[in-house]
């Protein structure tokens, strides 16, 4: 974990260092992009139980709730990991980390969306 910081400090600090406003802009833009999978997760967590109740008058079992909550937490958890991994790195490395994280969130949510087809959600 300490190695990249060493690399950063070994380089001349001035011209290679991204300005603070650029770092913040990148972080905020990606934070906005991460809100979509968060919104989808919340929508599923609210919508699935309602749909199941309207169609079958049944509830969601604990395993189902665990998956729905995981769907809500995936985007903020991955974004938090990206923030930690991007500390003391250059701006390009941060962009790469945020972009890869966004792709990972999409893949994980796609897997969670498929889960009801082989996991019994209904209590």
């Amino acid at each position, binding site marked *: 974990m300490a190695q990249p910081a*060493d690399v950063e400090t070994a380089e001349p600090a001035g011209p290679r260092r991204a300005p603070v406003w650029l770092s913040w802009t990148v972080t905020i833009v990606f934070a906005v992009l991460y809100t979509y999978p968060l919104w989808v997760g919340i929508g599923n967590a609210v919508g699935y139980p309602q749909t199941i109740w309207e169609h079958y008058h049944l509830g969601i079992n604990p395993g189902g709730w665990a998956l729905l909550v995981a769907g809500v937490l995936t985007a903020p958890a991955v974004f938090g990991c990206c923030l930690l991994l991007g500390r003391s790195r250059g701006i390009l490395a941060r962009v790469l*980390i945020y972009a*890869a994280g966004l792709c990972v969130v999409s*893949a994980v949510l796609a897997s969670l969306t498929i889960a009801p087809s082989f996991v019994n959600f209904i209590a």
Partner: protein
Amino acid sequence: MGADADDEALSWGHESDPTHVDSAGPDDAAAGPGGPVLAPGTSSAMLVVFGVFGGIYLLYTVAWLITAMQPGYTTGNALNDLMTQISSVLAVLAAPAWFIAALALTASRRNWVRILFLVLGIVVLLPWGFVSGRIW
């Protein structure tokens, strides 16, 4: 006259020719195979390991691509459907993105840390839809 011009065109010229440039090739070759050719810090074994991981991530990418190409349900809302399409594309890109990021960002770390990140990606990005056989 024509024959002379051809001979000149087909010759290598003389070493005293001012346009003559010595090649550095033979000196490099003299260093022997496996010496200076490899990038510093990366052993042959690690290159093989990275190659194996690259193959696995390539298979993951194909599996996610097959998953994304399945006809999904549409909500009727153009914006929702567009965002779903974009999410599918991002899911396909997840495996190569993780592989590139893991290799690029851990270049100065120990080998076991690099392998750990690559194994973590294989676990996280498992294409459940393809593996479970629900999408084909």
